[in-house]
């Protein structure tokens, strides 16, 4: 049977070059980067090189890269790190209703700690109106955190514009760029952000490692207390193999960005056109053009997403859904809800996220499979119109 992975928004296959780069740091160069002997210095050198490589991918300086355990920790560090440090200057944070749970639940946590959070809405294509951010800023606002590319629907936000608004009012700007880094050109100076979250496993790197870009001069309170690692912003002996893996993935992502982006854009556009053209009452979720190049997010009336996902899996195709039935919480996707999509249609949503290894033949196979599966489920559905 075919084995086709089209869930690259969930995680990506580590590149073989990434794995090869990591192995020596398990097998031979196991030193602690804080040790002064030669074992330690090998690790410290690797750490320095890695910091430079990750900085290169986003146009940063190496000393502006803080290694973390992943995107979630980076988001936590950005929000709580600023909130705890600036709590006497202000207690108001602005974010959006479609953020990743790493941001939303951190915000809830901060609300419990006495901070005030404004969640700006999105339009029916998932775009934030920068004016809504501007209107929400008060003298008490210390941070704006808006994601770059949405993990579900792929909508890309006008971060540069929002950063300008924040900075004009003296407010710091963070963006969760976990889904956009490595997919589109991301430059911290162009976006004019003070902090930016990165995850390794979304760019063909290993799981359990990520980074937070923190602009020079931006102070934040470390959440993990211990030694003076990562410029005092994140304690703990560095995960050298993971960090080397992230760095290699970043280097490859930078080299391949143009090729990868044009490749997945072709797959994305072909998939959208073919599916919408061959399945009645199917719709695209998110923005038609302001979207991540690898993201296809659709909904099909009268069918439920978990069933779609499982039948596709039986045909060897791995995708994901926003249906409540597939989530641990049994809550329908907060992102699709924010777009104003009715609940029964949220249940019928499907996300396909392409990676560099997918092919046009695979797109054709998925389209063909999907046509049959939707037909089968609709024939079974009591809410589908009878033919």
């Amino acid at each position, binding site marked *: 049977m075919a084995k086709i992975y089209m869930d690259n928004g969930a995680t990506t296959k580590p590149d073989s070059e990434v794995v090869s780069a990591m192995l020596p740091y398990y097998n031979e160069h196991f030193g602690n980067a804080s040790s002064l002997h030669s074992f330690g210095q090998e690790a410290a050198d690797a750490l320095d090189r890695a910091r430079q490589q990750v900085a290169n991918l986003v146009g940063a300086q190496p000393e502006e890269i803080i290694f973390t355990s992943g995107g979630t920790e980076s988001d936590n560090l950005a929000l709580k790190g600023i909130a705890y440090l600036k709590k006497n200057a202000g207690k108001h944070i602005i974010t959006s209703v479609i953020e990743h749970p790493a941001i939303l639940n951190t915000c809830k946590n901060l609300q419990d700690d006495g901070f005030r959070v404004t969640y700006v809405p999105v339009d029916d294509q998932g775009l934030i109106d920068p004016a809504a951010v501007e209107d929400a800023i008060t003298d008490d606002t210390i941070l704006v955190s808006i994601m770059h590319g949405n993990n579900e629907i792929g909508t890309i936000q006008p971060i540069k514009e929002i950063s300008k608004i924040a900075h004009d009012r003296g407010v710091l700007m963070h963006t969760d760029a976990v889904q956009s880094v490595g997919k589109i050109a991301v430059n911290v100076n162009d976006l004019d952000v003070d902090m930016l979250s990165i995850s390794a496993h979304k760019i063909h790197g290993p799981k359990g490692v990520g980074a937070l870009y923190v602009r020079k001069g931006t102070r934040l309170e470390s959440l993990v207390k211990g030694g003076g690692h990562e410029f005092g912003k994140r304690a703990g002996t560095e995960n050298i193999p993971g960090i080397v893996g992230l760095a290699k993935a970043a280097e490859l992502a930078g080299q391949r960005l143009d090729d990868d982006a044009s490749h997945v854009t072709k797959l994305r556009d072909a998939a959208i056109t073919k599916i919408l053209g061959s399945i009645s009452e199917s719709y695209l979720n998110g923005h038609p053009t302001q979207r991540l190049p690898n993201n296809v997010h659709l909904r099909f009336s009268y069918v*439920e997403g978990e069933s779609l996902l499982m039948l596709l899996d039986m045909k060897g195709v791995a995708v994901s859904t926003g249906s409540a039935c597939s989530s641990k919480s049994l809550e329908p996707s907060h992102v699709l809800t924010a777009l104003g999509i009715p609940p*029964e249609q949220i249940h019928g949503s499907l996300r396909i996220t392409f990676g560099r290894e997918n092919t046009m033949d695979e797109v054709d196979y998925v389209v063909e499979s999907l046509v049959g599966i939707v037909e089968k489920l609709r024939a079974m559905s009591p809410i589908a119109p009878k033919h």
Partner: protein
Amino acid sequence: MYSEKVMEHFSNPKNVGEIEDADGVGEVGNPTCGDMMNIYIKVKDGKLSDVKFKTFGCGAAIATSSMITELAKGKTIEEALEITRDDVAQSLDGLPPVKMHCSNLAADGLHAAIEDYKKKQGTD
């Protein structure tokens, strides 16, 4: 996550469809919640001679629908009313805990169809 039995009934559900001249129809669930089930029954000599379903929902919802039709077919009305949600889940070698409540509607659907049948009998 799902047992082999669930996967079997999900991928090849039994007795899918409507019964045009059904003696009773049970409608349970709600598409807003993600699961909706219609159970159709045909009654002959006090027994369920035919049972079919139409379901909008997840793998568990479809599998339980398929299973209830198999469990109920040929049973007397009284026997069919004794089939519980747990019976359906057990016949499928269990359901994931999160699915026990929301997607395990098939027994309710069958009972609703029988109620509908009884009501129609009473008004005839």
